[in-house]
C-alpha cells in the first residue's frame, strides 16, 4: 500500500489499524523533523506522540488527503514552537548570567548538521525554515506555503532570495 493510500484509508476510517499504518509511515519523518531542528532524542519522541495524538484527535477536520502532509507538518511545527515557548517561559526563574548560551540564544531552528548550520547563519529564520522544509523534509512549494501560512509566491521568492544570499556568501569566501 502506498503512503497516499494509507493516508486516504486513515482519513476515511480512522480506526486503530489505519492509525497504526499511518504512524509507521509518518513517525520517522516527524522524528527527523524534530531531530534536524535541534531537539534531543527524548524530546523528539515526546513531541512525536503529541503530534500523532493531535492527528488522531482532529482527523475529522481533514477532508482532502492531499492536504495531509502540510497539515501534519503544521502540527509538528506548532508542537515544537509551543515546547520552545514553554522552555523560554522557565528561563526568567534563572539569573540571566546563569542561562547557558545555547538556551539563551537558541534560534527557532537549531540545526543538527554543522555544515548546514554554518550556511544557514547568513539567512533569516523564515528563509531557514523554508529551505529545511523544502530540502530536508521534501515538501512542495505549495505545501510549505500551507505549513507556514504564507502565499506561494512568497515561498518561492524567499527560496530564490536565500539561494542568492548563499551564492554571495560563497563568492565572498572564494
Amino acid at each position, binding site marked *: 500500500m502506498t503512503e497516499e493510500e494509507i493516508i486516504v484509508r486513515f482519513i476515511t476510517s480512522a480506526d*486503530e489499524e489505519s492509525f497504526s499504518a499511518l504512524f509507521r509511515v509518518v513517525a520517522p519523518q516527524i522524528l527527523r523533523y524534530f531531530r534536524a531542528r535541534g531537539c534531543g532524542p527524548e524530546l523528539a519522541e515526546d513531541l512525536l506522540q503529541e503530534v*500523532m495524538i493531535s492527528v488522531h484527535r482532529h482527523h475529522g477536520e481533514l477532508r482532502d488527503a492531499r492536504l495531509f502532509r502540510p497539515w501534519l507538518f503544521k502540527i509538528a511545527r506548532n508542537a515544537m514552537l509551543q515546547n520552545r515557548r514553554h522552555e523560554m517561559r522557565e528561563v526568567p526563574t534563572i539569573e540571566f548570567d546563569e542561562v547557558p548560551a545555547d538556551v539563551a540564544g537558541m534560534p527557532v531552528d537549531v540545526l543538527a548538521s554543522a555544515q548546514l548550520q554554518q550556511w544557514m547563519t547568513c539567512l533569516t529564520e523564515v528563509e531557514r525554515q523554508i529551505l529545511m522544509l523544502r530540502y530536508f523534509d521534501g515538501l512542495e512549494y505549495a505545501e510549505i506555503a500551507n505549513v507556514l501560512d504564507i502565499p506561494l509566491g512568497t515561498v518561492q521568492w524567499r527560496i530564490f532570495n536565500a539561494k542568492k544570499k548563499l551564492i554571495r556568501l560563497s563568492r565572498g569566501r572564494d
Partner: protein
Amino acid sequence: MEHWISPQQWLDFVDRTLTPSEEARITAHVSQCKDCEVLMCGLMDWHRLLTQETQLLRHSLVYLDVEIDRLLDHTLNRIRPVGMKSHWTWSVLDALVLLRCLMAPISGPSAARAVMAVAFDRSGMTPGRCLNHDQWSQFLSNLSEAFGSICGLEGARLIGHAGRSLSIDYGCY
C-alpha cells in the same frame, strides 16, 4: 540585455519542472547573458549542495521498525484511556454534556445551563437536527463568548480549547 526570468521560473528550471519549450527558452537566454549564466551556475550549485547535505543529515537519522513500534504502542496507550478505543469520536450530545460538566464547577450549574442555552440560541441549533463542522465551530465560538462574559477571558479560552480538542462524530443530537 533584459533579465526576464522570474524567481519562480528560476526555481522550476533548477528543479527541472519546466516544460521543454520553457526550458529551451531559458537555456537560450542564459547562453547569451553572462549575468544569468553566473546566477544559474550559483543556483544549481547551491541546489546540489543543499540536496546532498540534507540527504546526509536524513541518512544519519534512521529509525528501526522496532523503535517505531515501541513509540506506536506508547501513543496508542495514551489514546485508549480517553475512551476512544472503540469509536474514536465523541457524539455531539456527549460533547455537550462534557462541556457543561466543565463549566458547571466554575460558573455554577444554573449559569452553565443558561450559557449553553444562549449559545444554542445564537447558533440557531435545534435538537434533533444534524450538525456539521462549521455549525459546531460557530456554536463553540458562541459558547466561549457567552461563558467568557460571566467567567472572564481565561474561562472563554478554556471552553474554546476544550471544545476544539474533541473529535466530533457529526450527526443528529
